[in-house]
């Protein structure tokens, strides 16, 4: 999770009731990029990235562009979680390559349900892609 607001980190964790999820948190894009650059094996890459749009130093879209250039992160699903619900920003985020866009400025219960749905969908997709990969490796 790349999120600069500590309150929102807490709320997102609460919304996900993240007992079975292992969530690492970065306060800004740069520290996340530095950390991801040190990944040596595909297994160490995250299954999914939650990214805030308004971050100190570098905004979410710029962070996403940089993340995509890092080995093992080219195809990792990235979900934008932000307070802004402006159409232009949503459009821009999807153009940059996010897989989902969830606004925080709604009713908390609604936010929680939406976020869980989007995350579960992408985690399942990643899981089935991994499964397909390992099966084709076995076959070959």
């Amino acid at each position, binding site marked *: 999770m790349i999120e600069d*607001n500590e309150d*929102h980190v807490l*709320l997102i964790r*609460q919304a996900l009731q993240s007992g079975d999820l292992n969530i690492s948190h970065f306060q800004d894009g740069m520290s996340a990029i530095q950390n991801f650059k040190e990944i040596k094996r595909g297994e160490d890459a995250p299954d999914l990235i939650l990214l805030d749009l308004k971050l100190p130093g570098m905004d979410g879209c710029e962070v996403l562009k940089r993340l995509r250039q890092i080995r093992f992160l080219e195809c990792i699903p990235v979900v934008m979680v932000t*307070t*802004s619900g402006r159409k232009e920003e949503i459009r821009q985020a999807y153009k940059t390559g996010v897989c989902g866009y969830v606004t925080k400025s709604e009713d908390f*219960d609604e936010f929680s349900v939406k976020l869980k749905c989007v995350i579960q969908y992408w985690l399942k997709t990643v899981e089935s892609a991994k499964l397909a990969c390992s099966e084709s490796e076995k076959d070959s």
Partner: protein
Amino acid sequence: MGRSEASQNKKKKNIPFFPLIIFVGMLFTVTLWDAYLHGTDPLGRELVSSLILIMGTLFSISAGLFSWSIESRRGMLERQVNERTRELNEKNQELAEKNQEIEQFIHTISHDLKAPIVSIQGFASILKSELGSTLNEGQTNYFSRILTNLKYMNSLIADLLELSRIGRIEEEKEEVDTIKVLEGLVAELKPEMDRRRVTIELKTEFPKFFGSRKRLEQVFLNLLGNAVKYIGTPECPKIEVGCSESRKSGFSEIWIRDNGIGIKKEYQEKIFQMFQRAPESIKEEGTGIGLNIVKKIVELNGGAVWVESEPGKGSTFFFEWTKACGTL
């Protein structure tokens, strides 16, 4: 020396040649004409030839001067036009940059105002659900009030942001299928309409309109939304939407009629001002910005908006909007 002063001086240098040359030329012409007309030769043939030569020379010089003067004036005007165009371009650039700065500023404010609201909203909801059945009636009421106020604050920020964008951000103008817009909006309002048992009926044909689709949708949404919200409790709540020819050429007059709570005469103009709400409407949630947004959008598009209403009987809101080309 200022630029305008310099150009004034140039003007003064150029202009006095012409009356002098024309005066001299006319004097000689009249003298010669008079001499030949009366069959006399007062000045002698050689003198006449010399005079004609001088006249020709004078005319050539005057023509040259005239042409030079025109050329120099044209050059000066061109330079002035180029200068003014450059100044205008610079001003435009400055304005565009300022606009960009304002947009960025508003964006930042919007984000920074929303972030704490999201936190309060989130933590209040979590607390409320965790405390659940242990809360007494009063405490539950306090939580509801916290959440209602946060919702109001969210709407207020959203409306103020929208208001600040109208007219400042250039919107794409296009031909708009009015019926489709209305059908989409009715679908959007359906849950609230069902809750209040209101029906919306389109009473006339609608031409295609021209303008910003987003803004036209906003006008309809705010007016229809208000009609639904302030419907009150009539026996058969209904909203009718229609369209007729406007007195203003190229415009249609759209009306939205309801049989809701109505508005007293003294508030019928005030409600279009920012944060002004009629006392009858206070029971319903609202920021008092919606109709101001409508007024700003409609007037920017060249039209007008007004209301006719009778308390307890309902209101009819009218606005004018541009028709698409070729629409009767």
